[in-house]
């Protein structure tokens, strides 16, 4: 059994809701095009923590990725999807 992209998006929303500093209303409404910095206000350090949690939650390893490589929620889902292949 594998999580679908839709499942991954929902799981990512849950992760963001559990993390400090994100606006719950914005997170609940977040879709693929939602911008991490501008819309969800995740700064670089917040992004670092998000990456750590994604590694744990999806059992993947981020390989030397620049944090600004992820501009939108969809970018993160693309990365998770590629790693899960």
């Amino acid at each position, binding site marked *: 059994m594998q999580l679908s992209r839709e*499942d991954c998006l929902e799981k990512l929303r849950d992760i963001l809701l559990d993390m400090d500093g994100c606006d719950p209303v914005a997170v609940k409404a977040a879709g693929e095009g939602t911008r991490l910095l501008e819309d969800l206000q995740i700064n670089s350090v917040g992004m670092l923590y998000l*990456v750590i949690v994604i590694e744990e939650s999806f059992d993947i390893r981020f390989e*030397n990725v620049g944090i600004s490589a992820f501009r939108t929620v969809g970018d993160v889902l693309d990365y998770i999807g590629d790693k899960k292949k």
Partner: protein
Amino acid sequence: MKWKPKACAAGDMIRVQLGAIWHYGVFVSEDEVIQFGHPVLNRRWLDDPDKIRVISTDIAAFASGNMVEVACFGIAERLKRVPPEKTVALARSRMGESGYDLLHNNCEHFATECVLGDRKCEQTERYVEMWNHRQVLDVYLSNVADADTSGPIFPPERLAQIVDTTAPKLKAQRIAVWKTLEYALLRSFNLHMADIGIRRTPSGKWESDRAYFSLSHSGDWVAVAVSESPVGIDIEETIHFLENDGVRRLASKVYGPDEVADDSPEAIMRAWVIKESCFKRDGGESFVPANVSMTAKDVRYGTDLADGQIALAVCGRSVANLRIYIRRGDKTVRVEGSELLSQ
């Protein structure tokens, strides 16, 4: 390991807080601190890790106006500490090295490797630990007809149990609840059924060393609760309680001698479902409702899920963090369940 602001000696591991993170280095002298990158000197360090190198700066640049702390080691760390002169030689030999990785090969990994001989990043480890120990209680609810039952059933003992089930409705419930559990473990804990040592106890309960879970099915519905601590869930079709003339006779069996025996169908249903969820959480030989207390504070109960067709109670230490998901086929929707269930 403790950290103190004190005079540094050659070969010491030192650190400085720069905003929300700590930056680590190896002290050689006031003019030479060897470190893997520098978050202030390389402002875009998070964006372009390929450009980050092991560098040497003076102590003022390292500190960037902040207080420097020195690592003070406990006995175990002192035993494995690399001699200071070797630490300095090792750090110098790695000058110019690249391969920076924010999570897996950062300034703290570099410094601990030079000073203690092994690569560690307490900042990451602490956060991972915190995350993995957060309280989770997720409930997944699915209509049997809607359940995604594709794929094989694991383990073979469960498959055999299902194959042996002759009643078609029960068989469908058992398949649906098991596939819902499979999804729940993956979704909530990233655990695969085959990896969690799932087994059946002599009392017939399924359990695993990796996560706590509880299963329930009634009529057209199945429910699964997963948590990091012991958990119990029970669902019952409301029709059996609310449209059954004989339900009041259950009162004497449901309530204990010290409980107020409200014999309205709603109250009996509530007591039954709550007590069964608590029994499932706490375990025991057989479910005798009158022997189970209803006073636990870590219970939530409601009848508004599934269009009022079921009453649901869930019991567990992490119930304050309750999340509820409805599965329809391969689609999952999170519902604002905490408002639907009350204490």
